[in-house]
């Protein structure tokens, strides 16, 4: 339980600071750190494959994309000047309301007391599951990924004259 608390604390802290920071790169990197925290949680929960997959996908790939995006969209002049957006208060209000609601729901609802034992669901079982009942979904996801890849390239690719930047 203490490990869980540590992981939770670290991840939440990283996420919270990331939101507060001005510098995009730093907030991005901190968010990547929070993703690593989540991977740690998965490890703690015993889902090794998912943890390594999370690291491989988020820290390996998505972080790169995010950082590239941040670089590509930096304004020509220095760091972005920040004008206070009027939305801070309602944002926090809504976030707080949702948090309170969820927490209330979690605490009040009778959740099933799980056995707590480490479930025997390793890579082999996952492999069988994926290629068994969920083979269709797997293929669909493969197709989705390819299409997303191509779509992203097309969207982001500079088209002719108007990509002035």
């Amino acid at each position: 339980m203490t490990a869980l608390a540590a992981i939770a604390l670290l991840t939440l802290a990283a996420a919270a600071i990331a939101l507060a920071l001005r510098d995009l790169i730093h907030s991005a990197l901190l968010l990547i750190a929070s993703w690593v925290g989540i991977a740690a949680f998965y490890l703690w929960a015993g889902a090794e494959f998912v943890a390594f997959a999370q690291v491989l996908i988020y820290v390996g790939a998505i972080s790169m994309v995010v950082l590239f995006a941040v670089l590509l969209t930096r304004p020509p002049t220095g760091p972005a000047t920040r004008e206070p957006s009027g939305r801070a208060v309602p944002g926090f209000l809504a976030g707080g309301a949702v948090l309170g609601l969820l927490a209330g729901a979690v605490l009040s609802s009778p959740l099933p007391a799980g056995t707590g034992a480490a479930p025997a669901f390793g890579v082999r079982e996952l492999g069988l599951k994926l290629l068994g009942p969920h083979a269709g979904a797997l293929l669909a996801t493969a197709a989705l990924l390819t299409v997303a890849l191509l779509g992203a390239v097309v969207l982001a690719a500079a088209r002719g004259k108007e990509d002035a930047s």
Partner: protein
Amino acid sequence: MSPLQACLLFSSALFSLGLIAVLVRSNAILVLLGVELMLNAANLNFIAFWRYGPAPAEGHGVVFVVFALAVAAAEAAVGLALVIALHRHQRNVRLGEARRLRG
């Protein structure tokens, strides 16, 4: 406070942080990252329920998370491509100014 409840609290906190990020920040990339956070919170829930849920051997949670990861990756890629396209279009990525898709 069972471990499951702890995990759920952790994920709801993460979820609301993501939501706040989306609502507060004006930069499109951070909004996207906020969404990414909310997605991860959801995955977190799945693994929690898998771990402490009634039938861990089934592994539905894990399978779902695997697929969710893949989809999230695709979503992130397309989202950021959109942001780049948006940037090319309006020189900055302040979401507030991207109002062209009006009713």
